[in-house]
């Protein structure tokens, strides 16, 4: 196979405005380089020029352009996410304290960090809290989100617009959401208690944030509110993807609304539901901002979950090794969720 070398004249073919300015920039250093090289090394200058031309033409016309585009992003992500991830695992096997924080070589700790973390008195409490937080947040977001998605799938004026308004919760800063709910859930003067009392549901105030038996629920309620809208949106997309003909056919076959839901909606939504649930798990494990805003993990760690505990270890107790260790343990959970997520969206990935 012959390589076609593009002559400079051909290379500098008239282009659009963008390309011509680019051409000037790209061409100039090359000419400059050739002029700088001594005459007797002309052959290597020519070869260099040829290589350079091939490189540049690959950049403009070939796959080089794509490689350039993707590699910048990938290098950035590897530097800012991939390497830290590896580093995190590494730190969980090292002694990291205020003295060794800045040094690159630290004493190896084996699995001592893991043993220490499990032996922490609050370990099981935090594990339980995490499980409760994840399960009930997801369940609440999903069930309410699905109900709303079904409701907004009806045809009525303004359905799409009103549904869209629900998404404000999703674009608000988590800390602000936390602040608002912290006030709504306040024990003595919170509006939620006032409403519940006036409806006769409770007799006396619930101290959402300071009662150890309900403090985790304070954060769960806020988190359900926060994540509900996004669940609803994704489920709405799935619902919209089911052909109306199917429902009409089922109706002609004599299926009532409930049977239609069980025999058509749910089976057709299976991959959507898989994706929504795994995204819900991921989102719940990512939820951080509500904790410092509402309970700060208290009282007595009764509302601390793994992600907040890990952060407290690192940034309040400066025990970075334990912080890293906890987050590695959490990571295992996240990877599990993401495998489900990727599997449920795989058909899309494959196109």
């Amino acid at each position, binding site marked *: 196979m012959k390589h076609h070398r593009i002559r400079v004249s051909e290379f500098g*073919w008239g*282009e659009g405005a963008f390309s011509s300015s680019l051409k000037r920039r790209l061409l100039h250093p090359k000419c400059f380089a050739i002029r700088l090289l001594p005459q007797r090394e002309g052959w290597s200058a020519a070869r260099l020029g040829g290589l350079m031309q091939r490189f540049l*033409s690959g950049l403009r016309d070939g796959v080089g352009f794509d490689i350039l585009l993707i590699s910048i992003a990938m290098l950035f992500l590897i530097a800012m996410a991939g390497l830290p991830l590896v580093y995190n695992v590494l730190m969980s096997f090292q002694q990291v304290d205020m003295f060794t924080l800045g040094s690159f070589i630290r004493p190896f700790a084996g699995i001592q960090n893991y043993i220490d973390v499990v032996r922490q008195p609050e370990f099981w409490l935090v594990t339980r809290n995490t499980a409760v937080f994840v399960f009930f947040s997801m369940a609440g977001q999903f069930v309410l989100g699905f109900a709303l998605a079904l409701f907004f799938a009806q045809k009525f004026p303004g359905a799409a617009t009103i549904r869209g308004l629900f998404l404000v919760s999703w674009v608000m800063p988590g800390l602000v959401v936390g602040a608002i709910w912290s006030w709504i859930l306040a024990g003595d003067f919170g509006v939620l208690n006032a409403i519940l009392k006036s409806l006769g549901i409770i007799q006396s105030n619930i101290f959402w944030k300071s009662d150890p038996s309900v403090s985790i629920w304070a954060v769960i309620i806020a988190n359900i509110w926060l994540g509900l809208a996004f669940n609803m949106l994704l489920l709405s997309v799935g619902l919209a993807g089911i052909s109306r003909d199917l429902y009409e056919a089922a109706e002609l076959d004599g299926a009532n609304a409930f049977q239609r839901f069980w025999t058509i909606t749910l089976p057709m939504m299976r991959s959507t539901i898989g994706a929504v649930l795994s995204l819900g798990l991921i989102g719940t494990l990512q939820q951080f901002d509500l904790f410092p805003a509402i309970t700060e993990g208290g009282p007595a760690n009764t509302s601390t979950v793994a992600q907040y505990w890990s952060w407290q270890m690192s940034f309040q107790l400066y025990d970075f090794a334990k912080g890293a260790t906890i987050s590695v343990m959490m990571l295992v959970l996240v990877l599990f969720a993401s495998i489900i997520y990727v599997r449920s969206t795989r058909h899309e990935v494959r196109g």
Partner: protein
Amino acid sequence: MTAQIELKNIEKHYGSFHALKNVSLTIDKGSFVALVGPSGCGKSTLLRSIAGLETISSGELSIAGKTMTGVPPRHRDIAMVFQSYALYPHMTVEENLTYSLRLHGVGKAEAKAKAAEVAQTTGLGQLLPRYPRQLSGGQRQRVAMGRAIIRNPKAFLFDEPLSNLDAALRVQMRKEIRALHDRLGATSVYVTHDQIEAMTMADWVVVMRDGIIEQQGRPLDLYDHPVNRFVAGFIGSPAMNFIEGKIASDGRAVNLVGGERIPLARQAEPNQPVVAGLRPEHMKLATGTPTFHFPVGNVESTGSATYLTSADGHLQLVQSERSTVSVGDRVGVEIDPALIHLFDPQSGKRI
């Protein structure tokens, strides 16, 4: 005649899929060549390889005498009309037409004049300030044509350009494209799956299947002398009838399974099994002694022609006269022995 596009031993692999197998083709300057074949036969891949949109795995491709290996599309000086027209939706008709001129550094006034001129020839006069979405299918098609002819390229490449038009418009555009080709003295390569388009428009038809060129030649040569059963069945509408039989011991006739015999105009090798190919339009209802008989299973009349189909669905006959034949009749058929094609049942090759 000089060769404008020359393909030598072109191979193309997509992973394990062998899309083009040792394709060699010479396209003369000023000729109109149609690449025709069923979908997946490699005709589009071949066209895109000429355009430089696909890189060929091996072989040599030259345009106007210059080797094009590794040359990006923009340096090949060819124009292409896409199946979807590929009009730039964010540009007006005029901007679409002059896009390539602007890229090649043609001045504004000159480009404008050229666009007006092309609009005149393609009947787009009043549409220059419109956007593609404001045009009808036929008008879009004309813009795509105009965009191709505006810069007088070395070759025009058409990728099924008429398949999105309705039948009537397709017939009209067929004539217009051919007339344009003749007026410009252009070299055109035209990909289609419609053999009628290929037969009516092209001077040279290339029939492809599974990545190889089955046969190439002038349209009527392909019709009269198909080299194999595939080409025989592909060219001509309605498709050729194939009847299995065996050459008689004297070599002057084909003995059919049912015991009837079709006389041949020439001597064939005796006693070999053959497939006889009979074009529906060559078979006539017998006035004298019929060559063979078949029971009629279906009668369709379009007014200008009558289509008779045998009860087993294998045979079809077209006659231009009205017919009194009805379903269930057993009709006698005669055929000019010189118009009978013989193929090898195993290889499909012409005997």
